[in-house]
């Protein structure tokens, strides 16, 4: 049961988990793992904390003079995607 194994791997991880390593551990293609991660995000089991957090609150040019607007935020393109476990109590 792959989705549950993903959540178990995160629960037992001692530090950050790399998606490439996780796909090798689970024996699935990396792109398939992306699909599972997206599903878990849609279901509220994982939270994604990168682009949405930045763009959602952005007022253009508040952080940099070279800002080209929220939709083409350079910080967003540089920040790696990350996902965190959402506990059932949240």
């Amino acid at each position: 049961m792959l989705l549950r194994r993903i959540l178990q791997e995160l629960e037992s991880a001692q530090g950050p988990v790399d998606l490439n390593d996780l796909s090798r551990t689970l024996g699935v293609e990396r792109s398939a793992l992306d699909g599972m991660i997206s599903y878990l995000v849609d279901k509220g089991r994982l939270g994604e904390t990168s682009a949405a957090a930045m763009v959602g609150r952005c007022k253009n040019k508040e952080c940099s003079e070279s800002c080209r607007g929220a939709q083409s935020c350079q910080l967003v393109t540089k920040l790696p995607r990350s996902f965190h476990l959402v506990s059932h109590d949240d």
Partner: protein
Amino acid sequence: MAQDFGVVGVAWKVTAVASLVASAHCHSEVGQGPRQTKTPLPDTFTIALAGNPNCGKSTVFNALTGSHQHVGNWPGKTVEKKEGVFKVDGREFGLVDLPGTYSLTAYSPEEVIARDYVVDEQPDAVIVVMDAANLERNLYLTVQVLELGAPAAIALNMSDVAEGRGIRIDQARLSALLGGVPVERTVGTRRQGIDKLVERVLQAPRPSTQRFRVDYGEEIETELVKLEAMTRERLQVADQFDPRWLAIKLLENEEDVVARVTKMEGGTELISAAQDSVGHLESVFGDDVDIIIADQRYSYISALTQQVVVHTKRDRTTISDRIDQVVANRALGIPVFLLMMFVVFRLVQDVSAPFLDWVDMVITGPVSHWSLSLLSAVGSPVWLKSLLVDGVIAGVGGLLAFLPGLMVLYFSMALLEDSGYMARAAFVMDRFMNVLGLHGKSFIPMILGFGCGVPAIYATRTLENERDRILTGLLVPLMSCSARLPVYVVFGLAFFGANAGKLIWTMYALGIVIAVLAGVVFSRTIFPKDKDAAFVLELPPYRLPTFKSLLTYTWDRSKGFVRKAGTIILAVTVLLWFLLNIPWGVKSQRDSLFGQVSATIAPVFEPLGLGDWEPAGALVSGFIAKEIVVSTITQIYVGADEAAVEEASTLGEDLALIVGGFGGAVVDAGKAMISIIPGVNLTTGDEGAEDTALSGALRASFTPLAAVAFVAFVLLYVPCVATLGAIRHEYGSRWAVFAAVYQLALAWGVAFAVYQGGRLMGLG
């Protein structure tokens, strides 16, 4: 040989064949030469193309329809709809390009459109275009299309890409495992395999007893059988929905399906039974049923993929993987990071030094006496000449000398950020950050802080909880931003010459060390640590940034620096000149308003070896922007030195001096950059060795130990006004005040320790 469409069990609406194809010599638009069978073509036929985004579906669509297509919107939606016709043996058939989706669950408008089209419009066939190089991911949609009961066929598209990567797919086995659905290899860009697939699809279907189904396990299958039977008995939906598919959707509690069924006669009882089943299954599994069903689906797909896909290339390690074996290695990662930072700062120093000499020569020479000559020619008063030469040119011009060095820093930061390294740094630093009560993701805003604190503070929005955001935001200003770099370079060159790079690197390292200590203290006091939340990080593949993107970033940041020099710093420089000359006509800067106020504050800095009014005044001016520290000390120490203005020469001599000097600086900087390679030394030791007026003035006013204390103070004290504003905006005024006060105290304490500790060790 007629082939079925693989998935039956539904009384699917298929138009009967009206007549046979007349001749074996007909030329069809689809396929070359005579068709292999005499199976008659249907009168009408509509095919829907489904597939994941970026699977080449549109390429297939365009290959079949050519210019015979129409683009509009799906009714009531803003999603694009493409329809077209393709011809076979002179007959036209319809083709609909469904929106690219990863599944047919109702999470997005595209998914709802794709599913509703198949359910409501009932195309004669659905061709699922799959990216053969990413079969496992693409199978999720395929499985859902098959569960819908739609007559389907599969195009294993981008087969050339898959084969290039050593991916071999057993077509026959895949077809068998998916209930006999036709599978063809296609390359949409070359129209390979498409015609053959379409011909197979158009051949008359024959009802088959084969049925595709995913085994969801005993408990779920028991409930599905019950609900399927109820559906057949109570709802008249056999023509529209596959009963098993409907039962699955009811267990998954899909809102729009539930809404549809509720409106049907007998639907309410079915919904009630489904809810009972859901309740029972949730008590059995202890989890949501839709997640259990999806989990089974993914596991089925994974097992299927392992049966049909063979990787012929043994070593699937990518270049990124090999680099990460060193860079993201938990033992090597931190030393690699520190080494990279050292190389960057060494480069900054090596590039800065020749240009500092050149700018010093240009400013004290041609620019100053051109300005004086011009002002004299128009009869300007003496005070205006002093304002221009001693104020603006000394203050702003002296700061612009650091532009080449800063461009190296910006370029290096862009390279680190755009190459994909930043994600690795977060990964590598996680254990290190745990000591601070944070995790690796907090290191990313800190890396950004090496450029500028303002975007770094805003980047803390990506951290999950407020505690992490505020704690990270309080530590970000301890990462030495680019604005402090000119201070390090000036003092480094004045007191350490060729070893200035070591001072620069030491300051950056000191900032990191102090941040660690501050983080430890804060996380054990005002920010007690919550339980660790695990996180998954995507390490994107390394990529070589384009030169254009690097230059764009460097140019943007450099423009920002020049703009700042021409606005805020210019304004402060002019203000400072007035403050250094008020009361009007004052002979000594010490007796000016600025001098007197600075002298009043100076005793605070006495224990740090900085008890004179000049360093005190420079530090106060740095509250506005750290670069202003350099402008201030230049105005104070050099601006008043009239001997720094060299003797006049002709315009031609000046221009030759400027151009020749610039060329020499470029050559020297280039040699120094290349000499950073171990074993290579193109330098003669004289590059950047010329003593500038400022360097001489600083050595006359500071001891080396006091200089280090001064630089350490600049590293740590109050963030600039812009960064404080960002802190206030993100975390509130209380934290902005806290940041200012704690950093001021921290800076004083560290500078005190440096100076007094150095004296105790006999260094000063």
